[in-house]
């Protein structure tokens, strides 16, 4: 990579590693022919070496989006290009080969580890599945991976329950790294951990990114963690991205009324910083019957009658800052990007 294609965070902005266009995932409900519109027409890029944060509340579709990206869930329609290849057109053998390049870390490291399997075998499992290395080579690789994530390789013959929550998450990370992936989808990777352990895991993820040039899709409801780790951030609401920008831009100049309310609702551990809080009315609606027009309008403190008629899509209102809201100055004349 040369300097011209790099931004200050070290991400290559010229060719995206992942290109998503018009991604849709609908889950039909058995009753009444209703449909859960978990992800409902979403487009974005993830550049090499960057961390794209996805924030949103429960039911916004962020986890479904992450799973669609790895085809752990089959998207209903849309386009996903990974490293120049059309992911949704791959045959199962080709997909399996490509899966070496993309891995996932889950929220609950206990639920995602097999309690009857030794840590050594869990970490080596991806190697075994892809038939890589001899037994002794795999063992050496497991020891190396454990050291990389800050675990003592002497413990490789133990079972998951003998480790703490933070250590189990390190095991999950070691397993995700086993195949030298390019992309890691981290789905709420620290949400189940104690506060004092979260920082250790965040630091580890940052160190590994630097060492291996990893690209992260970091999914979380924790806005402070996302601000810390992300280069760019997308805010989701009811299956849609409503705003996306570089992290420092999004957090200092949030434009969408939902982003602003979300940021103002986060309790900040500093009692001297008194902020104006925007308290949203009502509950997060379900993605079964999203409202017409703008999906946020029923809770939006700034909604106009027009908001019921236009379904606003992402438009680039300043370089790299896209937002989907007709109330944002300059939106109506800005370039539509999805």
């Amino acid at each position, binding site marked *: 990579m040369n300097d011209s294609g790099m931004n200050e965070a070290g991400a290559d902005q010229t060719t995206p590693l992942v290109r998503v266009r018009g991604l849709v995932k609908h889950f039909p409900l058995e009753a009444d022919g209703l449909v859960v519109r978990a992800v409902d027409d979403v487009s974005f890029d993830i550049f090499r070496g960057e961390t794209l944060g996805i924030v949103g509340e429960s039911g916004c579709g962020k986890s479904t989006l992450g799973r669609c990206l790895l085809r752990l869930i089959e998207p209903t329609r849309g386009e996903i290009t990974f490293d120049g290849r059309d992911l949704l057109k791959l045959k199962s053998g080709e997909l399996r080969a490509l899966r070496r390049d993309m891995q996932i870390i889950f929220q609950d490291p206990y639920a995602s580890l097999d309690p009857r399997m030794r840590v050594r075998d869990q970490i080596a499992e991806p190697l075994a599945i892809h038939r890589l290395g001899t037994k002794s080579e795999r063992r050496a690789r497991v020891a190396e991976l454990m050291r990389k994530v800050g675990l003592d390789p002497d413990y490789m013959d133990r079972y998951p329950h003998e480790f703490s929550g933070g250590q189990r998450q390190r095991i999950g990370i070691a397993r995700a790294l086993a195949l030298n992936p390019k992309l890691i989808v981290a789905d709420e990777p620290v949400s189940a951990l104690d506060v004092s352990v979260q920082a250790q895991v965040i630091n580890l993820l940052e160190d590994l990114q630097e060492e291996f040039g990893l690209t992260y899709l970091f999914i979380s409801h924790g806005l402070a963690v996302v601000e810390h780790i992300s280069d760019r951030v997308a805010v989701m609401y009811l299956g849609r991205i409503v705003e996306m920008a570089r992290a420092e831009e999004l957090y*200092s100049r949030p434009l969408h009324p939902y982003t602003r309310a979300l940021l103002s*609702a986060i309790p900040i551990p500093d009692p001297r910083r008194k902020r104006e809080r925007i308290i949203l009315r009502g509950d997060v609606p379900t993605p079964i019957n999203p409202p017409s027009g703008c999906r946020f309008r029923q*809770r939006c403190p700034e909604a106009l009658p027009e908001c019921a008629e236009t379904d606003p899509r992402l438009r680039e209102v300043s370089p790299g800052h896209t937002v989907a809201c007709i109330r944002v100055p300059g939106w109506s004349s800005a370039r539509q990007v999805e």
Partner: protein
Amino acid sequence: MALLEIEGLKTYFTTREGVVRAVDGVSFHLDEGELLGLVGESGCGKSVLALSLMRLVPPPGEIVGGRVLLAGRNLLELSEEEMRQIRGSRIAMIFQDPMTSLNPVYTVGEQIAEALRLHRKLSRREAREAAIEAMREVAIPDPDRRVDDYPHQLSGGMRQRVMIAMALACDPQILIADEPTTALDVTIQAQILELLDSLRRTRNLAILLITHDLGVVAETAERVIVMYTGRIVEESPVEELFAHPKHPYTEGLLRSVPKLTLAGVRKAERLQAIEGNVPKLTRLPPGCHFAPRCPYRMARCTESEIPLYELGGGVRVRCVLYDSTVIARADVEEKSATR
């Protein structure tokens, strides 16, 4: 006199792996109409402490020592019948997950009405009216209609409001709220915290808010207690705690959480993590339980039990750095170093 005074409370669990001292000599007070924050990570004993105050500790847990004085009366000496009267009418409690405390086969109105009828003599119709009124007070929209809903028909935030309405049905003076917003989305959390604060003001309700979230404490509490492995390690007025944390654990916690800057600057610095893990309660280190993770540890930390040092201004801290002999020695060293 404080409304609630806890002295040397000990709640132990006898397990196959040994005795778990979940609450191990905890003393503090709660004043009328104040919101006291209790923070700590999983396993610090904060939830067992809450259950101990209600005398609802499940076996094999047992309160083995101390006193819980409500307006001077020791709750630990009351009969089970007397305690039942206290619960709800004087002290009430809400939990993290309202679904586990609500009965799925009764309407929320029936459940609030039942709480009312337990303590007040009300006819069925009066109880229903009172239930609707209670729902209105906790800002449930359309209470006349919602009163006939079943718990599963309500959102998480609405269910927590129903729990609060039930808890307040008999006008208690104290509300113990154990992680009341942890299961909720952040925009709903903001609504519930606002509701608790307005109830505190309008009813002069004393609230013990238990949480792992330092942000929640910073924005709601007047005083804060920090617990670690069954003990109070620090108590402080909220502004003092966040501006000048005394205990190395508190300091470490505050440093390790990423803070929302909202400032538009790219932060390159790493988070300052606390090394190691919370120890198992059956295998606690001697002396200060935090010593193995503490950047300031010295030989004295593991030699004997560390008391809570009173520093004045409502600050207490369990750390030898605040022992007057240690401070005196540090002063001498500092003077000799500057000379």
